[in-house]
């Protein structure tokens, strides 16, 4: 029997490391995570959670099985607030001072509201009215 030479050994080690890396890396793909800390989240009535990171990404997670949808980028900068809307959708707002209105089915905002000259820190909903609180010192309804 021939023992493998150093070159063959190196190659098989490389292959092993590659396979190990692939195996270790795959679970991370199963559940997408934000590229930065989560700054805001809202629980929707259909048992999903919308989370947004300081990296501006918004992800919808279904609580039952963890199925996740990454939404199209809408904000320029951190998302500081997410609030559930009575129609089943939600609103997001953040560093860019705009408010995005999302339905539960589209991966792009259905509406965009502007007015603040500074970052939005918080949102609240009362029926049809959305209020935003901003670091520009004002609030809009």
């Amino acid at each position, binding site marked *: 029997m021939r023992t493998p030479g150093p070159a063959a050994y190196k190659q098989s080690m490389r292959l092993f490391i590659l396979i190990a890396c692939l195996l270790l890396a795959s679970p991370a793909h199963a*559940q997408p995570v934000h*590229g930065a800390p989560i700054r805001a989240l809202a629980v929707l009535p259909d048992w999903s959670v919308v989370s947004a990171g300081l990296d501006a990404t918004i992800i919808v997670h279904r609580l039952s099985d963890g199925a996740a949808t990454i939404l199209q980028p809408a904000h320029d900068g951190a998302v500081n607030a997410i609030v559930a809307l009575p129609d089943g959708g939600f609103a997001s707002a953040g560093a860019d001072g705009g408010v995005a209105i999302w339905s539960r089915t589209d991966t792009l905002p259905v509406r965009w509201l502007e007015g603040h000259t500074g970052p939005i820190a918080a949102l609240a909903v009362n029926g049809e009215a959305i209020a935003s609180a901003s670091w520009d010192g004002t609030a809009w309804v």
Partner: protein
Amino acid sequence: MLEGHTGPVNGVAFLSDGTPVTAGYDGTIRAWPEGTSRALARYAAPQNALIATVDGLASAGADGTLHLLSEDGRDRATVEAGIGPLVALASDGNRLAVAALSGTVLIIDTATAQAITAINTGETALWTLGFTDDGTTLITGGSARAPRRWDVATGRALGPIGTVPAPAAAQADRGAQLFRACAICHATGADSASRAGPSLAHLFGRAPASLPDYPYSDALRRLSAPWTRDSVAQLFEIGPQRFAPGTKMPEQRLADPDDRAALMDYLERATK
């Protein structure tokens, strides 16, 4: 547009009549009836978050103090949370969850202002949280970069989303799963006839051995107290033969209190 704060506005909520109310870095809580502005409360520290509760408002302070106030601004209670700067609030009606940047969450009864549960999320920076609609689970978000779930009653971690089924569904399934063994002999619907065992329709509150169409054993006829969650749970804890010696019910026990609770939950729903 609402102007009046002398600095960033960090929180916004609505009073029960629809009036917007805000909390600011300047430490004030302001109400905005019909576009006018009125200070409801003034605090020494910047206020980081504001939420409406069943009894009024809750405001989270950068000094670690939680203020519970009535809708007209009167101080109802002050909670020195003792967990560092407070950054986020969530409400499920009677209870409030307050998050500290340090990673700790307190669940607070808004009526008594007492902490019910403390949750240590282990996040190095905790930013946000929310209750599920049934109030059993809290979702938190922060430096871990993925939302995490917590049992509101016990403060225990339920793991990241997607690794385990939602607890409410799991509980419901567990009860239904346990009942499969019972369903061989017992029906639950209001119009269903008895099988080898009596129908369990409207079980809780019913007197033992009270169905006219079922041939009960003398052991069951000797019982007098109406069936309750507790008595049925006790039957499964100690076993039918100790509960009612001589019963026709096959001997079986549920040793795990969580299983007994899950089965009682299922019975409550299914036998209504």
